[in-house]
């Protein structure tokens, strides 16, 4: 069984191996020239972006094209009646296939990620923002691949149709990755909180938020402190006893703020007229008497612990899904 299944796994992996080999060649050929490419602020290297996208997309592809059809295609084409009446139990049949293709997904995702990590390391070092590319570097992509693959198999076992399973895999995988990024990763290790005095000359006023979404009410926006390679998860303004600065408190202390005279939105007030800059400065100084800035962040040294932690969680989720697959497959029919 192992010999046969390994052979199948090898054949199935060929396209991915070829693609990763091409990436390796491109990486090896272009990396020596990276030193010449001084990273310009706000401008990303196109190849760096492209390779990052590859690392992010690969696990989803493994889930859709290796995971989803694994059982679903057998059920759809009726070949399960051939496969499950050979001299091997269904459980064993699935365990072997799950572990071989699951390991292949992980190893290939890891190889791709490590190639890209190595290639981009000069740019990443210069960029001083390692958490910005957390999902595209290091070891976490192997966890994403394990998770996406077993998610695909589970979707196939439940949906029993390859196409439905592929789409379900994509949607659920993206949803899990995004939710994890927003709600789980910042809290994996309890973040460091640092209190700073409000700096009137670097604090702006405006709304934050992504354009398509309803933005939060306008508020004071202190500039991010200089913490190279750290991951700043939030910046707030609180009083001495920890109560956050409310809109009404702000309006009471700084009447007229944001009423046509200020720089409507945005963090920068450099282009604003001097009178506005001065009133803003005075406002922040008045607020600063009883309030201070609190920065919540993950220090740079947490990068690798967080990588391991996230890897473990995704692999754990993959194992749970694999258990679900095994349990469901035993009860098909």
């Amino acid at each position, binding site marked *: 069984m192992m010999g046969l299944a390994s052979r199948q796994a090898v054949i199935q992996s060929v396209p991915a191996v070829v693609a990763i080999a091409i990436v390796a060649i491109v990486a090896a050929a272009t990396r020596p020239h990276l030193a010449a490419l001084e990273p310009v602020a706000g401008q990303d290297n196109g190849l760096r972006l492209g390779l990052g996208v590859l690392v992010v997309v690969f696990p989803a592809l493994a889930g859709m094209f290796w995971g989803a059809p694994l059982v679903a295609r057998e059920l759809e084409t009726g070949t399960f009646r051939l496969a*499950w*009446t050979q*001299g091997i139990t269904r459980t064993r049949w699935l365990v072997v296939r799950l572990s071989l293709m699951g390991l292949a997904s992980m190893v290939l995702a890891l190889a791709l990620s490590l190639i890209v990590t190595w290639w981009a390391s000069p740019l990443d070092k210069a960029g001083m923002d390692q958490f910005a590319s957390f999902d595209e570097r290091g070891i976490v992509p192997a966890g994403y691949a394990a998770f996406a693959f077993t998610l695909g198999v589970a979707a196939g076992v439940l949906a029993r149709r390859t196409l439905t399973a592929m789409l379900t895999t994509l949607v659920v995988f993206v949803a899990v990755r995004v939710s994890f990024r927003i709600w789980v990763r910042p809290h994996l290790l309890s973040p460091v909180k640092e209190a700073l005095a409000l700096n009137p000359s670097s604090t702006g006023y405006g709304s934050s938020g992504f354009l398509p979404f309803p933005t939060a009410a306008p508020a004071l926006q202190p500039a991010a402190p200089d913490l190279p390679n750290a991951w700043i998860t939030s910046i707030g303004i609180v009083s001495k006893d920890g109560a956050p600065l409310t809109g009404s408190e702000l309006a009471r202390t700084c009447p007229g703020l944001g009423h046509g005279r200020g720089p409507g939105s945005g963090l920068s007030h450099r282009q604003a007229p001097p009178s506005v800059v001065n009133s803003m400065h005075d406002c922040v100084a008045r607020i600063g008497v009883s309030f201070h800035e609190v920065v919540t962040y993950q220090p740079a040294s947490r990068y690798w612990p967080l990588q391991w932690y996230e890897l473990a969680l995704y692999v754990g989720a993959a194992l749970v899904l694999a258990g679900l697959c095994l349990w469901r497959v035993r009860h098909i*029919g």
Partner: protein
Amino acid sequence: MINAIEADGLGKRYGRRWALSDCTLTVPAGQVVGLVGPNGAGKTTLLHLAVGLATPTSGTISVLGAPPASGAAHLARVGFVAQDTPVYAGLSVAGHLRMGRALNPGWDDGLASRRMSQLGLDPRQRAGRLSGGQRAQLALTLAIAKTPDLLILDEPVASLDPLARRDFLEAVAEIATARGITVILSSHLVADLERICGYVIVLTASRVRMAGSVAALLAADADRQALDDLVIAAMRETPGQEAR
């Protein structure tokens, strides 16, 4: 001697529909047994229950003295050719034989390659490009080269042309004689079974209407001379109870 199959009050429900209900039957070992019945009588469901592809909703079934598909060793003793003889379209003929060898401890490589050369199948041919008859022969080869004690064939010739049908049934008869194994063959056409079956079970709407050795059944009924007539008479005996 242990019976090949013993079913007692066996039932299988899919959603709200009972595909088989309260079926009690015995299939003797060491014979070629024909399972005849109209479409929807529950033949495929019964055979799926026997090979462990389905689990009973009610009642019990034992195959070769044990619950169906109870462990790898038991699975290896039962050969199965499913309806429409599914094969992996993208896998070559040789690939299928490799699979059979890898998955079955009792695999007889000589038997498999002998049959392949008899049939003139190109080992490199993809199974998806075989004719219906060739595909059925490939599926049969997989099922017999694992050297089972019980061979179960679910409507294996239903989609074959008369010539392929004859070749297939002859191959089955040959194997049964040569190896002395139990063969269960389902069909809705009596003519298919008449040539090779020594024992016949007529199933209508989950119920066994008639069961016995062909010779004894024919001898007992002086009026009817052909198996065909006997089977049809048995199916008609209980009007109004048919599944559909």
